[in-house]
């Protein structure tokens, strides 16, 4: 029997029982759709973490203090510049945040106390004005370099360079504006403002401790060696491994990739389970269908259908149900992914996950059709016609 005709007959069978066929498909639809939507959320999260890490600049190592006794002093930082091999910049970082006000506009913004080296370390470019200077840092000047998004949202077209602003009610002067680095990210680094870390310390009074050090190495190899050496230095200083958290950007990227692999495996397991359940649904429907169509099978056999022809008809029917379910699932899943992106976290559709989910759905559908189809094929013609 020609394949096309099998398709046609199977399609008729499906149309004859629309509601039941749809319910059988539902399992596959939900399975495929959830795989595609979930993977797209995972991919979106991974991409945004990856982009954020890349924005830190290449070959950068971050050292965070963990514990009140762990103090990063300017002397230590000077010392690290000479002690750690292959290092280009060492910079203290103080994280803070607050309210930035210009005329009657104000926004809440994260801020970082840094040195003039931040431009090189973070690989920023200036869009206007000047960078922080060594003198700014030494003299604790109240000057700011602001991110592109801050400039756009607070100043709304006015050139911010030279403007007076109030940061947490303290008067500052904007001396530079950074070029946008990640324009598509709402809360990215373009929303941050930068001031001399010495100024930040004074603003915060006793709380103004240096809690982070940024180090930029000459290359990738130097960066991983420097990370090792830094861990040794802080271990010697504090006699415990968790005093300082040393993180190189490249390590982080590797970790993200590792995380991604784990997540993909987990999603694959979820997909497998949900599609398996969908497959059981199809098998159930096909078994009912075989019982219900016993007479049809008998008639077909009486006019000379071979067992294999009966088998293939039911197999194709199962494959069509799962295939159609798969296609609807792709549409629903992609739609859900776009909807999530519109109102929630970023998502990224992955062609790979679509193909895998669809292929698996087809496979499960055909596999779950095997038993009912074999049952149909094995019916004795006289029993079937009774």
């Amino acid at each position, binding site marked *: 029997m020609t394949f096309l005709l099998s398709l046609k007959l199977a399609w*008729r069978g499906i149309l004859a029982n629309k509601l039941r066929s749809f319910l059988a498909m539902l399992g596959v639809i939900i399975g495929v759709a959830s795989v595609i939507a979930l993977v797209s959320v995972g991919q979106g999260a991974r991409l945004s973490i990856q982009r954020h890490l890349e924005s830190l600049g290449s070959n950068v190592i971050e050292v965070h203090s963990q514990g009140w006794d762990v103090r990063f002093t300017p002397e230590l930082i000077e010392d690290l510049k000479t002690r750690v091999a292959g290092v280009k910049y060492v910079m203290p970082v103080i994280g803070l945040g607050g309210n930035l006000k210009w005329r009657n506009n104000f926004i809440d913004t994260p801020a970082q106390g840094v040195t003039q080296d931040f431009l090189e370390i973070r690989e920023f470019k200036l869009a206007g004005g000047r960078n922080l200077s060594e003198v700014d840092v030494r003299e604790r000047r109240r000057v700011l370099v602001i991110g592109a998004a801050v400039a756009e949202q607070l100043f709304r077209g006015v050139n911010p360079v030279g403007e007076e602003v109030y940061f947490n009610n303290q008067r500052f002067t904007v001396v530079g504006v950074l070029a946008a680095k990640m324009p598509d990210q709402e809360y990215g680094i373009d929303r941050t403002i930068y001031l001399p870390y010495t100024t930040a310390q004074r603003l915060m009074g006793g709380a103004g401790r240096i809690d982070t050090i940024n180090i930029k190495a000459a290359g990738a190899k130097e960066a991983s060696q420097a990370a090792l050496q830094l861990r040794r230095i802080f271990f010697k200083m504090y006699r415990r491994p968790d005093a300082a958290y040393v993180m190189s950007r490249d390590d982080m990227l590797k970790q993200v990739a590792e995380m991604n692999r784990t997540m993909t495996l987990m999603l694959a397991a979820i997909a497998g389970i949900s599609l398996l359940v969908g497959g059981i649904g199809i098998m159930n429907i096909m078994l009912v269908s075989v019982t219900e169509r016993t007479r049809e099978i008998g008639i077909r056999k009486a006019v000379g259908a071979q067992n294999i022809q009966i088998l293939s008809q039911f197999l194709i029917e199962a494959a069509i149900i799962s295939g159609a379910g798969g296609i609807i699932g792709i549409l629903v899943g992609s739609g859900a992914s776009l909807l999530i992106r519109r109102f929630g976290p970023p998502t990224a559709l992955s062609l790979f996950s679509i193909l895998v989910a669809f292929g698996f759905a087809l496979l499960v559908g055909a596999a779950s059709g095997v038993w009912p189809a074999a049952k149909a094929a094995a019916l004795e013609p006289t029993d079937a016609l009774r």
Partner: protein
Amino acid sequence: MSAAFMLEVEEVTKIYRLGRIKVPALRGVTLGIRPGEMVAVMGPSGSGKSTLMNILGCLDRPSGGVYRLDGEEVGKKSDRELASIRNRKIGFIFQNFNLLPQLTALENVELPLIYRGVPARERRRRAEEALVRLGLKERLRHSPRELSGGQQQRVAIARALAAQPEVILADEPTGNLDSRAGEEILAVFQELNAEGITVVMVTHDPNVARHSERIVRLADGRIVSDERVLPEERLSAQELLAKLPGAEEGGEEK
């Protein structure tokens, strides 16, 4: 000798198992039917006539004895070969027509040709030809539900004919039909038989049986009589139809 028979059973038995109980349906039947014969098999219900038909139609295998079709022993054939015999040599007509309700008349007639792998165009041509011959030219695209019983049975005959069988086996073909529609079906059988097709039909109605040239009676799984119908006693469906009042030939019940 045996090669002269189209269908030949020798000491054929059939035992059904209902749980632990064995129910003999045929207790040793020996019968030979020559090519071109028209035979009626009669008997009360439970006499084994349908079982015999199923065995003759290769829908079932005998429990014992030998069945030869066209000189070939059927008992030794595989399921696959039996399906092929059903497809090519035998046209089966059932009491309840056994058409597929989701297919049109034309598609139902195409079915055996589909399983034989006849190309679509040829298939369609032969199916149309068979339906036209049975007076269903205007009903090609109708579903069985839209047809009267007589029309459905004629679709079933067209389905058998399209496959160009050597034998037509009919199990109570007129059982679900009124007398006029039944007579029309018998007219078709007599016409096909006159063209050389062997016809075997099961019936419990003596008047239906008298349309054939030979009557075999079964009781309790055994043949109790095997008689020729005298030519002057044989009924002609055409003549009977001419005498019947009402609609002209091919008339519809619906």
